[in-house]
């Protein structure tokens, strides 16, 4: 049975996962597999590899990311993701909001002894 803490951390991570994806694509185009591996490796995010693709698919449908396929010599075509102009704009707004929220919440937090 999931504890209150477990449920809460899931909600938090769900909330920031899209922010992480958009920021990971900020430097430019990235191969899907490499992007997933990079995000999975973020400490604390603890996201399963298999869950990333549905999210990427949804972001694509929403016009925040674009994809292109590149033929691979040894397997299926590779899919590269990149941020669209809309996606970049949304990323900026989300970053600003997240920073503001984080700083505001920080003022409420007391140090853990």
């Amino acid at each position, binding site marked *: 049975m999931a*504890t209150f*803490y*477990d449920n809460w*951390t*899931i909600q938090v*991570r*769900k909330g920031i996962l899209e922010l992480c994806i958009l920021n*990971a694509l900020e*430097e*430019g*185009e*990235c*191969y*899907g*597999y*490499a992007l*997933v*591996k*990079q995000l*999975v*490796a973020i*400490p*604390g995010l*603890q*996201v*399963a*590899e*298999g*869950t*990333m*693709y*549905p*999210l*990427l*698919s*949804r972001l694509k449908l929403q016009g925040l990311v674009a994809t292109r396929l590149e033929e691979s010599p*040894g*397997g*299926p*075509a*590779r*899919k590269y993701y990149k941020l669209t102009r809309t996606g970049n704009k949304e990323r900026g707004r989300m970053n600003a909001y997240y920073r503001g929220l984080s700083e505001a919440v920080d003022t409420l937090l007391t140090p853990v002894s």
Partner: protein
Amino acid sequence: MTTWTPAAESFFRDFLSSHFGARPADEVAQDIRCHVHEELAQRGVDRVTRIELQRVVEELHPDQNMVEAESAFVKAPPIPTEDPSKPPKTRTVAAAIFYVILPLVVLVLEGIFHWCAMVFFDPMPTLAHAALLFLVPIVSGCLLWKRTPWIPRSFNTIACLSGVALAVSVYYVAITFWWIPFAILGLVYFGFGLVPLAPPFAMIGISRARTLMWKKIPSAREIPWKTWSRRGIYVGIAALSILELPSYVGRIGLSMAKSENVSIRERGLNSIRIAGTEDDVLRSCYGPGRAWAGNQDAAGMVIGAIGCAEVSPEQAQKVYFLATGTPYNEIEHPQVHSRLYQRDQWDTVTFDPDQGGDRVGSRLRGLFMDTHVDASARLSYTEWTVEFENLSPDMYEARCQVQLPPEGVVSRVTLWINDEPEEAAFGPNNKVKSAYKSVVMVERRDPVLVTVSGPGRVLVQCFPVLPKGQMKIRLGITAPWSPDEPKVILPRVVERNFGFPSTLKHHVWSQGDGHDQGSQFTFTNRELLDKSPITPVQEFGGNDLSEQI
């Protein structure tokens, strides 16, 4: 080519249908398929079995609803107290100091003060060498402190550069490894010795940075990393070969060219010509000096260290003549320091091993000549006043071989001491030589020695030409003269260890009696040098001096 077993194919079909049902062509399903293929390729699996596939699929967490990502998170993670991918701060600072800052600082200091170049060898003789060396700590820094992911294109570049940097650092550690124990001992017992350890630290730094890159950044495990990294190593080796190989070939050629065996000698000479390292041979002609290491590049140090290139200055001088057809001292004194840097005069001064000896040795700089000629009928008498000036901070011996006029003899030698002319004494060769040596070597003051050095030739030696000082001598030369052939042949310098400034003027004054008339004229050093590479024979008749000159 990856092959799948039937069991694996069946398992994967079932997996996709169980999670995507009737939508196997769904984009997410395609993405998952692509992910699994890539994961298998990364693991180097050539034959995909069901067990192997199961392992990969388990990491996708198929127990979660893969379509509805919102509920697809795994159990709550432990509270992250510290970013595990981030090394402790003290380690980060230490890495910055030893892997990046120390090598960079040492390179900058070497560029300014040439410590290594003056003591061991010149590590940065060209800009290309400097660029390669600076690349090592810079790439280390980029790899160690790059936190954000690399985009594919720049990732390939940095992978390639890291390979170049690794090759360069390994080479420089290989040629300097012998001083590492001394540096460690110095560090342990005396508290200094960090500077010589910069090459191994730089090498460890770039190796560690590459490893960290591979382990910590997921995209580093992409296939292109290995490919581009390997290409970088090849590029580094090629660059070093282009820069260094000629020096090694030339040095080996020099050691072969001193051989008594004709075929070995010829191969050695050919090597020098092919490698184009005549300048290195020229440097070897001057032997060790105060800045002796400035004569050395890495090849010189390495080959010298293994002892197969012990070449004395005399041997090098002979080899230089054989390789180029030009006596070494007819060429401008080589710069003993790196070709990369501007040198001052101090740097170009070379110890003069032939001081007080019997032969003409190294060329010195900053000596000037002023000439006067006095000719008379039948028996011509020429007085040649030569003034040497030494611009260097050390005292030097000026030497030259003078070709006398046919059948001429030196009949008078005058040395100016405190602006007062003093006449020299004549004596047997051995006696005057030993007297001169004792004065030069022991008392280190004031003689001039003129000895016969060959048919019609004399060797003139003057010591000391004081730092920033001058020395003036006059040679009186008597030679037969016939009215049937009314001309006077001037003496000339055939070999010398000093240079002519471009503004030098030779003042020639002639005087005759009977039907001859006197003439006086001046010609510049450039005019003389244009006619002959050293100093020309000047012939003129009593009546039409100016026309013949």
